[in-house]
């Protein structure tokens, strides 16, 4: 169980960290606020998931231990969440893919047999639904904007789409959890997800890509080239001031 909570927490933390890189660089001040607010929510989700994971695995590790005292290889986030921001349209495409998946997953988690996880799921689903609204709106705005914004949105979708399959991967851990009613398997959510994102992309006047390959490895700790610097940045303060608290 704690293994799976770590994966979810890693998804939220890594994507939150990526979004933080937009601060002071977003296209407008409003967008700066939007992306940092979304990042804040995600980091909040990660904290709750890490705390629970540490309590469950018997090691007593804290949220800080998980975020700051693990190596690159120990992070089990889906590769989608660590993809570089690219231009704004690529970030929007990444948000579109993640938020539609996360709402579906957390809504399913709200029915978990574990009451604490269920409470977390229903709460997190509401928050991510707000992020989804933001992603949907931008996808349509850029798709229906100028020729250039539509081109970039199309490029963004093509860039991130090969990484979406990994979100719905099922393994022995997930099958066991699903069987016990503790956590839903993401695999059956894929059809709904595809239908939803396709509808948004169509409203934007674009077509959802059909990738010829699918990235995997994140859940096993195998990451992209760009992941090292991200973790280094995330952990830099803790490395300079070991044991520091803030």
């Amino acid at each position, binding site marked *: 169980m704690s293994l799976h909570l770590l994966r979810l927490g890693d998804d939220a933390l890594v994507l939150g960290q990526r979004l933080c890189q937009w601060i002071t660089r977003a296209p407008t001040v409003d967008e700066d606020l939007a992306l940092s607010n979304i990042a804040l929510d995600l980091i909040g989700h990660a904290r709750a998931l890490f705390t629970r994971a540490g309590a469950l695995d018997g090691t007593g590790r804290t949220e800080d231990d998980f975020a700051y005292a693990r190596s690159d290889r120990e992070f089990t986030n889906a590769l989608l969440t660590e993809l570089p921001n690219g231009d704004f349209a690529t970030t929007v495409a990444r948000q579109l893919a993640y938020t539609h998946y996360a709402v579906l997953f957390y809504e399913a988690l709200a029915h978990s047999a574990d009451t604490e996880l269920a409470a977390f799921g229903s*709460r997190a689903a509401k*928050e991510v639904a707000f992020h989804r609204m*933001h992603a949907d709106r931008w996808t349509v705005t850029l798709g229906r904007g100028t020729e250039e914004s539509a081109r970039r949105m199309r490029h963004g979708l093509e860039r991130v789409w090969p990484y979406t399959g990994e979100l719905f991967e099922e393994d022995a851990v997930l099958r066991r959890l699903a069987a016990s009613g503790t956590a839903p398997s993401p695999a059956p959510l894929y059809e709904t997800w595809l239908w939803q994102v396709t509808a948004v992309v169509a409203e934007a006047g674009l077509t959802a890509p059909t990738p010829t390959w699918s990235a995997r490895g994140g859940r096993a700790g195998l990451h992209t080239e760009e992941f090292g610097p991200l973790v280094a940045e995330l952990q830099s303060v803790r490395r300079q001031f070991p044991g520091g608290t803030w």
Partner: protein
Amino acid sequence: MSGSAQAEVRLSAPEVRERVGALPDPELPVIGLGDLGVVGAVAPGADGVLEVEITPTYLGCPALPEITAAVREVLIACGHPEGRVRQVLAPPWTTDRITREGRRKLAAHGIAPPASPAPDGAVPVELAGVPCPRCGSRATRPHSPFGPSRCQSVLWCTACREPFPHMTAL
């Protein structure tokens, strides 16, 4: 409940609850934690230690550690140094938990409060925009769904031509 602790003044659970409720919210100091609806039950746990339940507004609310520390100080001041703060996620916090007094205070400080909960659970229908806390006009429109803090969005008043924060209904 050791013998020595009995000598101290120990305030009752309702008294502690009142003091915790009066604490200002770190992000919205105009409103107390009680009026914001984040304070749950204040009662002794299974081991007899006084517990204060806190329901976070948002999971990533950056004020949570501050709130927890402030509640702990109240517990100590009230003669419950061993008291605990417990985060409760179910049922989740919604803006319906903000009291009438809380809504009044928000409006008085230029933050448009979220729509009031309907008394019988019916969905309130808003025929016009959120009223501007400055001039009262309902000729307002959304500007940015994300505002100065996680629970606020920004609206635009077309009458007085000023933006204003609105506590997002949740």
